[in-house]
């Protein structure tokens, strides 16, 4: 079975949650002073499920993105214990499985993956270009964390794309409007990605992904290759969205551990079935 199928189920589930939560929590009744004055208050809507990929609550269980917690701590210079508890689950997942958030859960990553068809089409027509970009994620992470610390304001929290995406959905369903900045950012990322460089945000700019990469560098689950099966066709190199070279696994053991997000696209692409997930020894 292809990993991609399971991955799509996860990604669609996240998308469904991001749409369902704001619909579930919104109060469809409009306020009107005249009605209040007559003693009618709109009926309240109490829910226990809130949030998106940045921070999520389910009946008292909190899950918060490690970068969100790090920013709050650096900006406020206070450690709030419930916040640390909320990061335990994502930290454990990232430490064991790598930055699977990016490939298995992130809604923007999902939409950008789907966007590859459009990009491929435009490239054939000669409209879309291939801009070579290096990996600036760690520089951006350091820079934003410094800003957060010195100006005492969480920075990535304001523009992290999957969070902005969830936030805009929430604004859309609850206030029937979207915020200009968020939509401009998402359109900008999609346009740049389509016309200039494949998976540019995920690959070169995302500070949140950068932090998860650092956390997942020593992960337990990783891709490995059965050398005797490999036919050196290079299909896996083409499939990898991060321009890693799975074909060199085992030959040149310097496989980019930090960048790989265990998406399994190389494993799916391999015609010989040489690539597989393994537990690091």
């Amino acid at each position, binding site marked *: 079975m292809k990993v991609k199928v399971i991955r799509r189920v996860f990604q669609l589930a996240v998308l469904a949650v991001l749409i369902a*939560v704001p619909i579930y*929590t*919104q*109060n469809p009744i409009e*306020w009107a*002073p*005249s009605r*209040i*004055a*007559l003693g*009618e*208050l*709109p*009926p*309240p*809507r*109490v*829910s226990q499920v*809130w*949030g*998106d990929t*940045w*921070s999520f*609550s389910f009946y008292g269980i*909190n899950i*918060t993105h490690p970068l*969100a*917690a790090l*920013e*709050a701590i650096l*900006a*406020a*210079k*206070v450690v*709030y214990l*419930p*916040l640390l508890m*909320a990061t335990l689950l994502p930290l454990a997942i990232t430490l064991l499985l790598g930055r699977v958030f990016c490939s298995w859960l992130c809604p923007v990553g999902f939409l950008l993956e789907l966007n590859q068809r459009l990009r491929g089409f435009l490239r054939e027509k000669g409209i879309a270009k291939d801009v070579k970009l290096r990996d600036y994620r760690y520089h951006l992470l350091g*820079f934003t964390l410094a*800003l957060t610390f*010195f*100006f*005492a*304001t*969480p*920075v990535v*929290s*304001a523009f992290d794309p999957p*969070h902005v995406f*969830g*936030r805009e959905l*929430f*604004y859309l369903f*609850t*206030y029937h409007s979207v*915020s*200009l*900045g*968020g939509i*401009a950012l998402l359109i900008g990322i999609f346009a740049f990605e389509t016309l200039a460089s494949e998976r540019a945000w995920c690959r070169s700019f995302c500070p949140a992904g950068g932090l998860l990469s650092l956390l997942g560098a020593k992960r337990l689950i990783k891709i490995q290759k059965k050398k005797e099966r490999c036919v050196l066709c290079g299909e896996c190199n083409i499939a990898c969205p991060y321009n890693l070279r799975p074909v060199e696994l085992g030959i040149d053991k310097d496989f980019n551990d930090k960048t790989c997000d265990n998406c399994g696209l190389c494993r799916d692409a391999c015609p010989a079935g040489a690539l597989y997930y393994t537990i690091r020894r």
Partner: protein
Amino acid sequence: MRLSRRSFIRSSALLWLGFFGFKMRREVPVIRPPGATSDFLARCIRCGKCGEACPYDSIKFFDISAGANVATPYIDPLETPCYLCLKRTSEGKDEPLSDYLLCGEACPTGALKKIKNDRDTLLSLPDELKMGISVLNRDICLAWQYDSCGECYYNCPLRDDAMLDYPPNEVITGAVGIRPYVNEKHCVGCGMCNYVCPVNEKIAKATVEPGRKLTYFEERYAAMVRNVIGKAGREVKLPAVRVVKRV
């Protein structure tokens, strides 16, 4: 050390970005949700959960034009005031909806403190956790001028503690109706009075076209509202009771 033009541009761009960040970081005089700490802007991770938790969708969020305040929550009492997580029963009584104020319960970082949702806790809330305070301008207040209002008093969620129907320690001759008085000690600044006050722009400017059904407020207060505003002059701040930030 030689500095090439390229690296100079790069490093000065970083400086500019930092400067920009500094310019953008400003506290805005705005009503935050209840329980907002003094270092709110530093602690808030813009997750938006307070807005989702709010049972009346009273909490709104800033757009990019608010600089560093982007996606932080605020309450605009003229549009949707905070009703302190109470529900109004069919008998007209107010009952708590939840054990804690829901926005504070939803906040993952403690930027909004968790506040117990009962009257005693709210009445003894420390000043720095309150949203603001109501200020009443007696010169344009219909209750004070014409003895004919009292919406703010009737709709106050902490009625008889935060909003009194008569000022204590004051003797007013010829008083018949309600004379609303904000008790600074107990007012949490939820904005309900601000919201229901009929002395507002909308009613002052409302022109009644034939065929349109009058709202309750227009029918009852419009003439008086134009009167008091006319007397007080154009510069007067509306409505008669406003929520401002505590200092």
